[in-house]
Structure formats: C-alpha cells, structure tokens
C-alpha cells in the first residue's frame, strides 16, 4: 500500500493542488449564497428558487462548477488531513490513513460526477 501511494503521489498532488486553488477560489462565493445566504433568507426570493437553481446547475458550466465544489475540496481535505495525521500520529499509520482518506475523496468525486450528470 505504501508503494502504491508513492507511485500515485504525482496524481494526488495535482488533484490536491487543483483542490486548494480552485476549491478555495470557489468556496466563499458558494458558502455565502447556497450555504448561508439562502437558508437565512438573505437572498432575493427568486435567486435560489428550485427553478432557477436547477436551471443554473443544469447548464454545462453550472454542472462543472458544482462538480468542482464537490470534488476538489475533497482532495485538498484528504491530503491535508493525511498530513495532520502524520504530524500528530507519526508515519506508521500513514499508508493506511492516506489510503482511507484518498478512497473517500475518490468515492466522493465519483458520486459527484454521477450526481451532477443526473441534474
């Protein structure tokens, strides 16, 4: 497992890099509106009504952005959580912890692709 992780490091790092860059760029806008603005009633009524939200998300660009918000933070999160575990727990469990975290990120990304295609 350790050897497999070592071979995949370049791919993992690229996904992590995309995650931290694109994920961080997108998150404030998404969180301020979908996660906080709409539930708190701070947005105009029509802004994230189902009709409009669905229209935006069904657009090819919308699907891509929604997928980016789902998948990219998962890879940044998995990579940094793995680093935190090495810092706090040492390297002994790194192969197991890393594999588990990247598996979650992969599963979430695949689920995200499937979800975004069904909108």
């Amino acid at each position, binding site marked *: 497992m350790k050897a497999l992780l070592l071979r995949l490091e370049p791919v993992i790092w690229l996904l992590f890099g995309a*995650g*931290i*860059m694109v*994920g*961080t*760029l*997108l*998150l*404030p*806008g*998404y*969180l*301020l*509106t*979908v*996660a*906080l*603005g*709409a*539930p*708190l009633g701070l*947005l*105009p009524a*029509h*802004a*994230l009504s*189902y*009709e*409009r*939200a*669905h229209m*935006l*998300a069904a657009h090819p660009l919308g699907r891509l952005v*929604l997928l980016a*918000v*789902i*998948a*990219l*933070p*998962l890879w*940044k*999160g998995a*990579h*940094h*959580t*793995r*680093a*935190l575990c090495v*810092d*706090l727990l*040492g*390297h002994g469990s790194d192969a197991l912890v890393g594999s588990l975290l990247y598996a*979650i*990120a992969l599963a*979430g990304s695949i689920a*995200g692709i499937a*979800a*975004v295609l*069904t*909108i």
Partner: protein
Amino acid sequence: MARPANPHAMAPARPGATRTAPPQIPDDFWSQPRMRTYLLFDATGIVYLLVGLVALRVAWALAAGPEAWRALLHGFSNPLYLLFHAVALAASLFVGVRFFRLFPKAQPAHIGPAKPPPQPVLHAMLYAAWAGVTLALLAILGGVWP
C-alpha cells in the same frame, strides 16, 4: 525542556562507532505559535472534506426535485449547519490567505521557455482572481444575473 522524538529520525543506515542517544525535540516543538498555525492549516483539511461531502447533498437535492431542494435549504438553516458553514467560510479565507502567500515562491524560475510573473504581481493576480470569482458567484447565485 526537551523530550524524546521519533527514535528513527535522521538515523544513519550504518550505526556510528559509539552509542547515540535518541533524537530529542523541545517540549514546545508542536505548541509554538507558528507550528500551531501550520497545524490549524492542516486541520482545515477536515473541514474541506466535510464541505465537499455536504455539497454532494446539494447536487442530489437539485436532481431530486423542488421538495428535496426546499427540505435541503430548511436543513441548512439548522444552527449546527449554519455554524459548520460559517467555520467553513473562515477556513477557506484562512487557507486562501496562507496559500496565496506561499504559492508565488513555489513557482520555478522557468519551465522550459515559460516564466512566471514576478512574485508580487502573481500575489496580486491571485487576490484579483479570488475577488472576481467570488463576486461573479455572488451575482449569479444571488439572483443578479442571469
């Protein structure tokens, strides 16, 4: 003052002529302010994992229909969800500031013929992109356009 560290840290492949004491680190190695900030930075990974998984619910609700969407937004108005998303917002800002500071110097002087912009220019471009993307999302998701 000092405590034993990982006993294998910086160990040579072949042992030296005399018995060595295992490596040490200061008692405050992990609790120094700069190290605490770095550990917090790594800890935002947990928040990002959860944010991505919660965003999956957004996609599922949009695919399911108006009732599911209404239920989702109602669920998001729960104080625990609001707290989580507020923490996520703080985390994304903290990550952005630290990452944008460290990103420019991580660019090699050149890759083949391509050269990155000077570091201060690159730093400013990152913040401009951040502001631009955020404003665009606020406008689109906030109902201004389309």
